């Protein structure tokens, strides 16, 4: 056993773990952070959009040194059928602001930098170390961790579980359940390299401006899922994710979906001639508010994806992870400053502070959305995109049919596909879940 004792051990050096370790180290706590990858970020996959506000709270001048790709000036939402897309594009010069709001990043590089800040703040960071189990005393209180290193048990007053969506430790120790197939999406992603001028020309960008595309429709073959295309400086991140339960039901393959998405006539020209340099996959927690497990107990707290803190509707995860990590660290620091023990009752301060933040408020707002999209996936991801695209084609194609007839034929196609009750029901359910 390693004799040295720490104030806190943080498991994981992703977004949540780095935020927690940094915050505690900045406050003078003795922190040990353990990461199984060769370096922070070497196991992590993301789209990736970084939301500046949440990072700014941790590192105010991050813009000066963080490896950022492009600041986002344009967001596109596409609804695809097999040959077309109906799009909503929002581009604003307001986003060319002095302190941009959103950036694209490359996770492996960003995490490495974030981790260097954690080390600078004084935390001990140990990579290439997999935590295999939590160490608990006879009463079940978490008193440290066991690792795959020799003499690998290490003790601390509190353990911050920032182990990501597939957190083994929490489930092995019975602190929370393993994620259910209907509560996690599997995303596959590729990195497509192209000269930066080509990217700028294809996405209509100047300099370091960036654009992102989120796409739903027939690409997910009736499964609950979404495709994404994000522009970086010299590459394009392109991927697609669907609920694991849907993959299980349909027998679709993740790489098959990705390939079809790449071949879609609206997508193919964006990546034409690119060189692929990586293929990756990762789970995304999509269960929302109803899937959040117990957030703390005697000697432990759980943050980020491990706690299912992920807003699938808005594609936000890393900012919730960073915020929950920071808040957990602040709560732990308060408990410690009062010289109180790290019991469940005292650590409940973290839960309270998280409930007062946007993290839980946002997840609560959309608590019915995951179930709705899951149960109605055929309609929302297959039928409607096809209908909308047909309606658009009918609207723009000039072929001598009187407009009135065109409109009633569009309406008829909606009603025959979904019936009036179905259409109103879907609209009503959607509005209620959005509220």
């Amino acid at each position, binding site marked *: 056993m390693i004799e040295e004792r720490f104030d806190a051990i943080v498991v994981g050096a992703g977004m949540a773990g780095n935020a927690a370790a940094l915050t505690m180290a900045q406050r003078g706590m003795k922190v040990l952070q353990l990461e199984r990858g060769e370096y922070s970020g070497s*196991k992590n996959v993301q789209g990736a959009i970084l939301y500046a506000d949440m990072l700014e709270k941790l590192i105010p001048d991050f813009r000066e040194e963080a490896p950022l790709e492009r600041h986002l000036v344009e967001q596109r939402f596409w609804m695809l059928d097999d040959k077309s897309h109906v799009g909503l594009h929002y581009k604003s010069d307001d986003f060319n602001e002095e302190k941009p709001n959103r950036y694209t990043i490359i996770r492996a*590089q960003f995490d490495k930098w974030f981790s260097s800040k954690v080390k600078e703040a004084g935390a001990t960071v140990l990579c290439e170390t997999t935590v295999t189990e939590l160490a608990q005393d006879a009463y079940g209180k978490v008193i440290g961790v066991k690792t795959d290193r020799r003499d690998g048990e290490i003790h601390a007053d509190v353990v911050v579980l920032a182990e990501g969506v597939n957190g083994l430790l929490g489930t092995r120790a019975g602190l929370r359940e393993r994620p259910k197939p209907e509560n996690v999406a599997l995303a596959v992603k*590729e990195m497509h390299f192209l000269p930066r001028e080509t990217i700028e020309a294809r996405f209509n960008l100047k300099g370091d401006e960036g654009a992102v595309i989120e796409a739903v429709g027939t690409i997910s073959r009736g499964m609950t899922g979404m495709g994404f295309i994000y522009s970086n400086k010299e590459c394009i991140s392109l991927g697609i994710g669907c609920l694991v339960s849907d993959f299980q039901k349909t027998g679709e393959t993740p790489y098959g979906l990705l390939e079809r998405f790449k071949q879609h006539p609206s997508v193919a020209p964006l990546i034409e001639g690119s060189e692929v340099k990586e*293929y990756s996959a990762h789970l995304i927690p999509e269960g929302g508010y109803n899937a959040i497990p117990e957030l703390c107990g005697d000697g432990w707290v759980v943050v980020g994806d491990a706690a299912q803190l992920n807003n699938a509707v808005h594609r936000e995860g890393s900012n919730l992870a960073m915020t929950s990590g920071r808040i957990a660290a602040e709560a732990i620091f308060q408990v410690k400053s009062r010289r109180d023990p790290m019991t469940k009752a005292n650590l409940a301060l973290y839960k309270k502070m998280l409930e007062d933040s946007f993290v839980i408020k946002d997840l609560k707002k959309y608590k019915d959305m995951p179930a709705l999209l899951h149960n109605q996936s055929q309609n929302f991801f297959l039928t409607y995109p096809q209908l909308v695209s047909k309606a658009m084609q009918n609207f723009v194609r000039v072929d001598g049919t009187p407009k009135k007839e065109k409109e009633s034929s569009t309406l008829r196609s909606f009603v025959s596909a979904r019936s009036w009750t179905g259409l109103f029901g879907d609209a009503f359910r959607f509005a209620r879940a959005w509220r």
Partner: protein
Amino acid sequence: MSTDVAVRVEDKLFYNRYQVDPGRAHIKVRPHTTPTPQLKALLNACPARCYELNDKGQVEITVDGCIECGTCRVIGEPSGDIEWSYPRGGYGVLFKFG
């Protein structure tokens, strides 16, 4: 059922960097004579196609190309069909971009 585009996953995995830990498979399939529906689902759901049928119709795993996503754990661990762990610290897939 399955998709109509031919994809060679091996070609995709070829882009990736791995630190293989020989003789220490981090995922194991429970010995079986006929695969359960969960095990069969892994043949298609694994993004690295680590699961294959052998000539006896049983599901086998080769973990070398595993990208550690956890999908098979979510599907196959509750039924006891597989045992899932992370590779030892420092081993397994190494993302340069992620």
